[in-house]
């Protein structure tokens, strides 16, 4: 006896296949990038960009490395 439900057997078999997936990924990454991009912009304004030690410390502090990594991952 098959473990798949009738719905499971037909999802994704229509003409559009996984078409909507691209659209949805675009939208979720868009929202993520709005937030992450604004965060980066506002952070950069507050940073003394000429000061290596300050910038280097900032990258390592608190949530910053996580957000930076997310930004790089989502943008790419």
């Amino acid at each position: 006896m098959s473990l798949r439900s009738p719905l499971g057997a037909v999802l994704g078999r229509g003409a559009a296949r996984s078409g909507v997936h691209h659209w949805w990924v675009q939208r979720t990454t868009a929202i993520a990038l709005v937030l992450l991009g604004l965060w980066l912009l506002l952070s950069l304004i507050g940073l003394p960009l000429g000061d290596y030690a300050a910038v280097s410390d900032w990258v390592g502090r608190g949530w910053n490395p996580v957000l930076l990594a997310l930004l790089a991952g989502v943008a790419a």
Partner: protein
Amino acid sequence: MGERPLSPHLGVYRFWYTMATSIMHRFSGLALAFGLIVLAWWLTALANGESAYLAALDWLALWPLKVLLFGLLAAFLYHLACGLRHLALDADLGFEKRQARRSALLTWSVVVIAIGVFGYLLFCPVGMRP
């Protein structure tokens, strides 16, 4: 398959600000894709230690690169504002012709102001700000 006919698109519409709004979203997106490389380069310089970072800053101090950075800021702000407009349209808000035209104007106005504000904050040396 071969040559299938395409319905007329680019040549038949009067070039107007609504069309410009849409095209600029695509161009700014392209610019930002390039900007991502610039960001990666800057982060790599940061990771490579002080001398590498300061060398990178020396490059960025040259006026062509400053112009480039300003362009990237403008592209970012434009893409952000227009992108929010697109997300609203996706949610079926502001789809009527009048609303769409008004939101396009709003987008441009917001972007111009934002470029002024953020350009000032980022490019005017801290000591010179009031």
